[in-house]
C-alpha cells in the first residue's frame, strides 16, 4: 500500500522482553525453590524470630525477647488481628475484600458489654448473640455482593460505616465498662477468663487464635467448600458454569469473616474490660497486611491459611522487637510498610512451575 520506506529502522533497546518460559529446575532443587515461595511467610517468620533474638536487649543475663512474659505478650497482642485475618483470608481467596471487620469488632465489643452489663445476660447467650450478629452482618454484605454484583470493596466500605454507626447508637457513643460480679450492671466473673492465661503462660486469646487458625487450615486443606472458594477466586465464571454455588459460597465466606470479627470483638471486650464503639479502628488493614505477608494474592484464587497465621505472628514479633529496642513510633510504621512491600515483591518473583 505504502511505498516502502527508504531506510530501515535502526533499533532501540528491547521494549518487550521475550515471553518468559516456565523455569525448569532439577526436581529436588525445584521443590526447594517452590516450597520456599510457598512458605515464604514461614521462612520470613523464622528469620524475623531469629533476628529478634539476636537484636533483643539483654537484662540480668536474660534475653528480653525470649522471656516467657514477652512471648506471651506477643501472641496475645496478635490474637485479635490473627483471628480477623483468618476470616479475611477466605474473603481474599474469593477475590474479595472485607473492610468492615474492624468496625464489626467494635460492634461486637459494644454488644458483649451491653448485653452482659445492661441486659444482665449470661456469658453463653451473650457470646452466641454477638457471634450471630457478626455472622449475620457479614452474610448480609455477602448477599449484597452476590445478588447485586457490587464490588465487595464498596459494600464493605459501606458496612464499615454502618457497623460503626450501629455500635455508636447501641452504646450511646460511650465506651461501656465491664465490671465483674453478681450484682446488677455487672458481668459474670467467668467472662474475665478472656484476659487470663492457661497456667499463667498461654494467654486465652492466643489459644483461641491457635485453635481457629488450625481449624481454618484444615478446612482450607480438605473440604469441598475450600475447593469452591479457590475456584471462585481463580475464575468465577468458570466456577459458576461448573456448578459451583457461587452465591452461597460468597455469602458463607463473608459470614465467616463477620463471625470471626465478632469473636475478636468479644475477646477485645474481655481483655480490655470495656466495649467501645471506636474499638478496632484500622484493624482491617492490619489483617489485610497479615494476609498479604502470608502470600495470599489479592487477586484471589491462591494463598494459604498457614501463610496468614505466620504473617500475623511475623507482624506481632516485628512490632514487639521494634518496641523493645525503643525504635521511634514513626520509624516503626515505615518499617512495617517496607515489610509488606517486600512480602508482595517476593511473591512476584515466584516462578511459575511447569
Amino acid at each position, binding site marked *: *500500500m*505504502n511505498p*516502502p*520506506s527508504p531506510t*530501515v*529502522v535502526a*533499533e*532501540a*533497546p*528491547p*521494549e*518487550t522482553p*521475550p*515471553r518468559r*518460559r*516456565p523455569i*525448569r529446575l532439577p526436581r529436588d532443587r525445584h521443590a526447594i525453590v517452590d516450597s520456599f515461595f510457598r512458605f515464604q511467610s514461614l521462612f520470613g517468620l523464622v528469620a524475623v524470630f531469629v533476628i529478634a533474638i539476636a537484636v533483643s536487649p539483654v537484662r540480668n543475663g536474660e534475653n528480653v525477647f525470649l522471656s516467657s512474659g514477652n512471648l506471651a505478650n506477643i501472641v496475645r497482642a496478635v490474637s485479635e488481628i490473627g483471628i480477623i485475618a483468618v476470616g479475611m483470608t477466605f474473603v481474599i481467596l474469593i477475590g474479595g475484600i472485607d473492610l468492615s471487620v474492624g468496625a464489626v469488632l467494635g460492634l461486637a465489643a459494644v454488644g458483649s458489654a451491653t448485653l452482659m452489663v445492661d441486659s444482665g445476660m449470661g456469658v453463653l447467650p451473650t457470646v452466641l448473640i454477638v457471634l450471630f450478629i457478626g455472622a449475620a452482618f457479614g452474610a448480609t454484605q455477602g448477599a449484597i455482593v452476590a445478588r447485586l454484583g457490587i464490588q465487595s470493596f464498596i459494600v464493605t466500605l459501606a458496612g464499615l460505616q454502618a457497623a460503626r454507626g450501629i455500635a455508636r447508637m447501641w452504646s450511646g457513643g460511650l465506651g461501656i465498662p465491664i465490671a465483674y460480679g453478681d450484682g446488677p450492671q455487672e458481668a459474670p466473673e467467668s467472662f474475665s477468663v478472656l484476659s487470663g492465661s492457661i497456667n499463667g503462660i498461654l494467654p486465652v486469646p492466643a489459644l483461641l487464635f491457635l485453635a481457629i487458625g488450625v481449624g481454618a487450615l484444615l478446612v482450607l486443606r*480438605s*473440604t*469441598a*467448600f475450600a*475447593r*469452591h472458594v*479457590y*475456584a471462585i477466586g*481463580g*475464575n468465577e*465464571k*468458570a*466456577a*459458576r*458454569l*461448573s*456448578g*459451583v*454455588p457461587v452465591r452461597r459460597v460468597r455469602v458463607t465466606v463473608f459470614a465467616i469473616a463477620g463471625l470471626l470479627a465478632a469473636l475478636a470483638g468479644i475477646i477485645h471486650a474481655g481483655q480490655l474490660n470495656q466495649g467501645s464503639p471506636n474499638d478496632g479502628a484500622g484493624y482491617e488493614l492490619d489483617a489485610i497486611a497479615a494476609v498479604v505477608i502470608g502470600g495470599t494474592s489479592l487477586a484471589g*484464587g*491462591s494463598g494459604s491459611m498457614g501463610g496468614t497465621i505466620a504473617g500475623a505472628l511475623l507482624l506481632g514479633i516485628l512490632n514487639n522487637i521494634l518496641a523493645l529496642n525503643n525504635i521511634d513510633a514513626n520509624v516503626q510504621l515505615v518499617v512495617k510498610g517496607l515489610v509488606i512491600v517486600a512480602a508482595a515483591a517476593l511473591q512476584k518473583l515466584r516462578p*511459575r*512451575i*511447569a
Partner: protein
Amino acid sequence: MTDSPLVRMTGIGKRFGGVHACRDIDLTVRAGEVHALLGENGAGKSTLINILSGVITEYDGAIEVSGRPVSFGGPAGAQRAGIATIHQELDLVAGLSIAENMFLGREPRTRVGTVDIRRMRRQATDHLRTLGADLDPRRLVGSLRVGEQQLVEIGRALSLDARVLIMDEPTAALADAEVERLFATIAELRRAGVGIVYISHRMAEIEVVADRVTVLRNGGVAGSVDPKTASRDDIIQLMVGRSVDALFGEGRNEPGDVLLDVRGLAVTPRRPTPGRTEPAGVDLSVRAGEIVGLAGLMGAGRTELLETLFGAGGSGRRAGQVTIDGRPYRPHGPRTALARGVAFVPEDRRGAGLMLEHSVTDNVVLSALSSMTTLGLVRRQAVRRTVAGELRALAVKAASPAVATATLSGGNQQKVVFAKQLLTRPRLLLLDEPTRGVDIGAKAEIYRLLHQLADNGIAILLASSELPELLSLCDRVVVLHRGRTVAALPRASATQQAILAAANGDDAKEAR
C-alpha cells in the same frame, strides 16, 4: 513476481532452554502473496511469528525487509518497518470504544492538540466498511462479540498501512459470512501489493486463500507446497508426519428417544445487552445418541441458546416449553442444569472454562466434587483415582495432574474442560465451538470422542462456525437466524449452500 521479496528470513533458530522452538527455518513473503503457515500446536509457528513481529529479539539467523538486513528492538520497530500482526489473543481494551482502540497511542490530533474524535471515528468506520462490518465506532469493545472484536483488530492493522500483515488464525472466531468478507479484503490487500502471512488450522480456507503453503513440524520446515496442486491429505501428512485416516468418522448407531425437546423458546431480557441475541422462537429436539449441529452467522444467537439451555444466560422473561425426558425443564442456573444431566462446554475456554493458574486436578474435579466428598471433606484418594482415570481416558497430555492448566496446549486444555463436564455423567452435552484454537491432531481426537459419547447414548447439541465440521459430525443441522430456528436439515440434505442460505435468512424473510 520477480522483484526481491518483502521479507526474507534465513536460517532462523530459537532455543528456549534446551528445547529448539525453531531451527534453521527459511521463509519468504513476496508482495501481493498470501503465504500460509501450517503446523500443529508447538510446531514453531508462534515463535517464528514472534520473531518476525519483533516480540522475540534474540534469535539465530537473519531477516531482510525489502532486501535490507534488519533487527527489531521490539514490536514497535517491526511496525515501523511495515510489519503488522493480528494476534490470536486480542489486544484490545474493553473499556474503550472501537475508534479509540483502533488509534490507541496514535490518535489523530486537531490543530489545538486535542484528539480529533470525528476524524478518528470516520476513519474507523471506513476501515470497518472495507471489512464489510457495519459497526458504530463509538461502541465499547467490551460490548462486542469475540468475532466482532477480531474485525476491529484487523481494522487496526489496516489502519497501520502495513506492507506485511501477519494474521494468526484470523477466522477462528468468525462465522462464515464474515470469513467471506475477510477473504474479499485479503484479495484487496493482495492487489495493493501487501504480503500476508496467514496462519490457520482450517484446511478449506488455506485452499481458497493461500498462494503458497509452508508446513512446520517440530520447529523445522517439513515442506513447502502449492495448495492448488497438493491434496489435503498430503498437507495433513506433512503436518503430523503420518497419514491421518478418516478425520471425520462415519457409520453411527441409530439414535434413541427424544431427550431434549424445545418448543417456541424465547427470552425477553430484562435489560437488553448490546451484541447479545437472545432466543426468539427456537424449536428443536435432540435424541439420545444423536449429534445435532447448531449453525448460524455470528450474532445469530447460538451461544445465547446454549447458555439459556444451561441456565447461564441473561435474566429475563422466558416463553415456550423445554422438556428433558418429557418432563418440564427450567434451569435456574448451572447447578440445576447439571443436576438434570445437562453439561456445557463454553466457547471461551480461558475466560469461562478453566481456572488457568490452578492445577489440572482442581479443574477436572470441580463440577463433580460432591461425588468425592464425605461430610464436606474431600476424599483425596478418590480424587486422585478419578482424575488419573479421566485423564487417561481422554489421553490428556500433561506433565502431571498437579501442573497449572495454563501450561497445557490448547487441545489438552479443551480436553480438561471436557473431562470436567464428563465427570458429571451428563446425558445431554451442550458444546460451543469445541474445536476452536485446537490443532488438527487434537481435533481428530475430539471428534472421535464425540462419536464415542454419542454411541454411549449421550445427546449432543453442538454449535460451530465451521460448516465442514457440522456437516461431517452431525446427524442434523439446525440453523439459527436472529435468534430463531429457520431450518432443520437432516444429514442427507445438509450442504454448505443450504446452511448458508438459511443462515443468511433467505428462507425467513417473514421474520424481518
